[in-house]
């Protein structure tokens, strides 16, 4: 038993260290002073000069710079607004579709479900070229509206699939009871099915939102002015000025959203697995 525990740690720990290493390096970098960071004789993993009160060799001025002197907070606000709108639109389309695919349709429903999911596999890299003149014609260039219109194209299939998985795990008897009691199907849906599925729906919200935060190529081609950018395109395109990299500020701007998303992912991971596999691979 002890040996089993030991081997588990011996395998899992190196993986965790390698996978998380870039984030550790971001964390150390963001509080480094220029003199410390840009001296190759210094040990990069710690704050120099090395002392017990290590924070006295560190500085928060680069982190403050990101929030005070760059449009970083604008990008965060843009991303939040964009994500909220896209998630709302997505739920509007995906909730009914996911439910119908899980419950109402026969054998062709399974096929339709997989069909919708396959749309998720048509990547933005295949679609951004024809979409970019369309966006320009609609007068949506350099507007968050363009992204609000386009992003549901990948969040809807993804969310429909997950929701279908969640709805399948809800016992049919609950709904049947409501139907026998004289509820209409729509009412049963709104009063019974959706409230019970709230954890599943919340999972969809988190992951659909993170897809919006992640998206790069649409945001990169459709948005051109600095103040309209999202964090994914703003940080790499605007915080790097020519050849000068402000690494501490860049790493602060990078690490903060990453940690927030990872905490959310970790909290909802088990539910994600359930919905993801509940769809077909059971």
């Amino acid at each position: 038993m002890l040996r089993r525990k030991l081997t588990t740690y011996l395998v899992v720990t190196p993986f965790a260290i390698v996978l998380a290493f870039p984030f550790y390096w971001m964390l150390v970098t963001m509080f480094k002073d220029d003199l410390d960071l840009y001296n190759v004789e210094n040990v990069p993993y710690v704050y120099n000069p090395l002392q017990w009160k290590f924070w006295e060799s560190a500085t928060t001025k680069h982190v403050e710079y990101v929030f005070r002197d760059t449009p970083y907070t604008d990008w965060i606000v843009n991303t939040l607004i964009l994500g909220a709108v896209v998630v709302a639109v997505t739920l509007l389309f995906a909730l009914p579709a996911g439910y119908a695919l899980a419950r109402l349709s026969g054998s062709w429903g399974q096929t339709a479900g997989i069909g919708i999911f396959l749309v998720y596999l048509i990547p933005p890299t295949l679609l951004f070229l024809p979409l970019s003149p369309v966006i320009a014609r609609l007068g949506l260039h350099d507007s968050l509206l363009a992204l609000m219109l386009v992003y549901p194209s990948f969040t809807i299939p993804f969310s429909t699939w997950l929701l279908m998985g969640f709805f399948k795990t809800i016992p049919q008897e609950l709904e049947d009871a409501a139907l026998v009691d004289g509820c209409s199907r729509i009412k049963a849906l709104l009063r019974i099915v959706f409230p019970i599925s709230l954890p599943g729906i919340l999972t969809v919200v988190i992951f659909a939102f993170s897809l919006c935060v992640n998206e790069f190529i649409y945001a990169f081609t459709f948005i051109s002015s600095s103040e309209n950018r999202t964090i994914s395109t703003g940080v790499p395109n605007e915080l790097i000025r020519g050849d000068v990299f402000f690494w501490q500020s860049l790493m602060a701007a990078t690490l903060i959203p990453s940690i927030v998303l990872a905490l959310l992912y970790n909290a909802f991971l088990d539910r994600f697995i359930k919905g993801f596999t509940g769809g077909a691979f059971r």
Partner: protein
Amino acid sequence: MEAEAAPRWTPGTRRWRRVLEDRRVLAPLLIAPAVIFMALVVGVPFGWSIYLSLTDAIGGSLTGNWVGFDNFTNAWSDDNFQKALRNTLVFTFGSQAIVLVGAAILAHYLIRDFRGKWFIRFLIILPWAAPVALATLGWLWVFDSLFSVINWTLGHVLHVVDTNDPPQWLGRPNLALLAVIIVHAWRILPFAVVIFLAGLASIPSEVDDAARIDGATGIKKLLYVTLPLQLPIALVALLFGIVFTAADFTVVYVLTQGGPFNSTQMLTTWSFQIGINSGSLGEGAAISLYLFPLLAAVSIAMLFFARRAQVS
């Protein structure tokens, strides 16, 4: 509520309601909005992309003159395209090989319960949760030409590289391709682990018991019991990984922009270069469509396995 409302129904609304209760009506009614929306924002642009690839359309225009398959043949005869095609395949299958092996090992141990699992799992899913463009910026800094933390470690601690002339990870063609592969494998690995965990969780505990009774333990059990049962889910993870990697634009663009000397150019970055930067919309569309056979093959395979999984 229901009882009070009932007398006010006219026969017409009652019939309407009964029609709504019929699943043959209700199901398509609930699915239709999603399907129509998808057709508009995915189907139409996709069709348009095929049309554009057959014309000489330039940047900003929606139409062009018909040129047949000229764009496809022109693109094909370009050395950079050939390089991009080869790179896409190396990039995709190279990173997925790392991912599959890593995920199979990691998931096998991560499914166990141990102290501190929550924190370890948090560290492991960080690369997947972090926004791609930002995580890749982190790697840009890790691979920096002067202050690379990897080179510092290799030079000052392990003494395996010359500290005065350290490897330029993003400045040498082969190293840059390797760097792009590593970063993408790093990013997809946690996602594959999650899918593997889902697969492992779905193996019934009776199988475990039966294996124990038959005396299968340790490496033998892994080889003859767990891995074969994991095969379907491993294929799913692989297919996803192939699509996400072959269609990736962000990692390559942020890390190398296709350089140095187009040595890390992929089909995606090359179509961006031609279609957006050079303004040859038609040829750009043709280049990106060269990805389609690969994606279609993967989708068909996925469909096949999903059905198989359904039957068993």
